[in-house]
């Protein structure tokens, strides 16, 4: 059965496509996304408080490497198969190597409503995976030239809204622990799915505005927006299995790998690789990959995770 929060996404998308007057004010979108980012961070932080940090190090290093790797796979595909110019290829690659917080939240909701457990420290991996592909995208576009203003790029990348809120939430959760946070639970945890529903409504509205660009930019982008996440999901599944994650955890990692950024990466690319056309990367990541993942991909990644854990365990 389809998760009700997905229905909010569809409602937004349909309303947008029919050019309804429905619109969420930008301030409301900001409010909701701030709450979601903090909630996800807090939840992960609580978990960090529970386990020795050092046991997580291998996973942390692995996902950073995964972020670099995925952008390095995407780049030549876009450049030589898709015939995009260097800047566009690098920018799209950065989006696909980085992660989408909305997609992550939907995957977690999917597991939650099926009562499937997963490693609760996933938000830590989420925040770690946001940045590497963005840096790689800048290198791919600019080379490692001296002129690149790494200081201001670092500022842009590490002090963007989503990294600050996720990391801040993680730290607060970690310092305060589960008991400390009990007083803010009703706001940040009990309401989470409600905020997520509104967020998806707005994402549907935004997605609808991307369809026009897609028509212009042709079918390679559509194909890439579906095949790339499937490939990344497969890699993520393999890595999750290799790291010894549970089925749920493997599926979440696959989803992270498969998801394409639409908050951190667009902002950073716009400033650091301005010659890349933002329409291309947003049309792909929001117009294709986000709905694909949310509607179809997540169940597939779950099947992949189950398959990996049975086939490979048995093999």
């Amino acid at each position, binding site marked *: 059965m389809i998760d009700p929060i997905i229905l909010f996404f569809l409602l937004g998308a349909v309303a947008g496509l029919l050019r309804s007057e429905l619109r969420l004010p930008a301030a409301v979108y900001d409010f909701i996304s701030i709450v979601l980012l903090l909630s996800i961070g807090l939840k992960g932080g609580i978990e960090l408080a529970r386990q020795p940090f050092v046991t997580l190090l291998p996973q942390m290093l692995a996902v950073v490497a995964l972020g670099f790797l995925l952008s390095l796979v995407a780049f030549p595909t876009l450049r030589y198969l898709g015939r995009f110019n260097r800047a566009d290829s690098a920018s799209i690659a950065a989006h696909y190597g980085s992660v989408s917080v909305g997609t992550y939240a939907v995957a977690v909701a999917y597991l939650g409503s099926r009562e499937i457990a997963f490693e609760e420290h996933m938000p830590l991996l989420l925040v770690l995976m946001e940045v590497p592909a963005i840096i790689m995208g800048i290198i791919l576009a600019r080379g490692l030239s001296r002129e690149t203003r790494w200081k201001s790029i670092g500022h842009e990348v590490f002090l963007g809204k989503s990294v600050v809120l996720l990391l801040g939430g993680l730290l607060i959760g970690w310092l305060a622990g589960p008991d400390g946070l009990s007083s803010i639970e009703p706001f940040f945890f009990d309401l989470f799915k409600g905020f997520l529903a509104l967020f998806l409504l707005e994402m549907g509205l935004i997605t609808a*505005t991307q369809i026009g660009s897609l028509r212009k930019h042709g079918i390679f982008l559509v194909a890439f927006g579906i095949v790339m996440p499937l490939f990344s999901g497969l890699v993520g599944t393999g890595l999750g299995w290799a790291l010894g994650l549970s089925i749920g955890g493997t599926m979440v990692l696959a989803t992270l790998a498969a998801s394409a950024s639409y908050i951190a990466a667009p*902002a950073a690319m716009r*400033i650091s690789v301005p010659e890349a056309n933002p329409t291309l990367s947003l049309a792909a990541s929001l117009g294709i990959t986000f709905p694909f993942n949310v509607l179809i991909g997540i169940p597939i990644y779950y099947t992949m995770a189950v398959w990996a854990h049975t086939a490979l365990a048995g093999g």
Partner: protein
Amino acid sequence: MQNRTTKLLTIITESVLETTLARELDRLNARGYTITDARGKGHHGVRNAGWEPSSNIRIEVACDEATAGAIAGFLEKNYSDNYAMILFTSDIEVLRLNRPPSTAT
């Protein structure tokens, strides 16, 4: 009350540039600026302000002609290729308040 004829440079561009342009304006000797949130349409299509990546800002700088020219030239050279942007100037009369109209303290 003495008045002074000068220029108002208006820049309409992507919100993502706000921090950057504020820094550049300082560097280019604008003694002040005013920013409002905007949406719109132009060569780069509709920018409906539904979320950050499609939001515009509207920056106004009251300054002398030379400064306006310098800022416009700089923006043209560095930003106008890659960003949704329109620039225009008009004549204004800044009313000379008790302090000089555009001198930093």
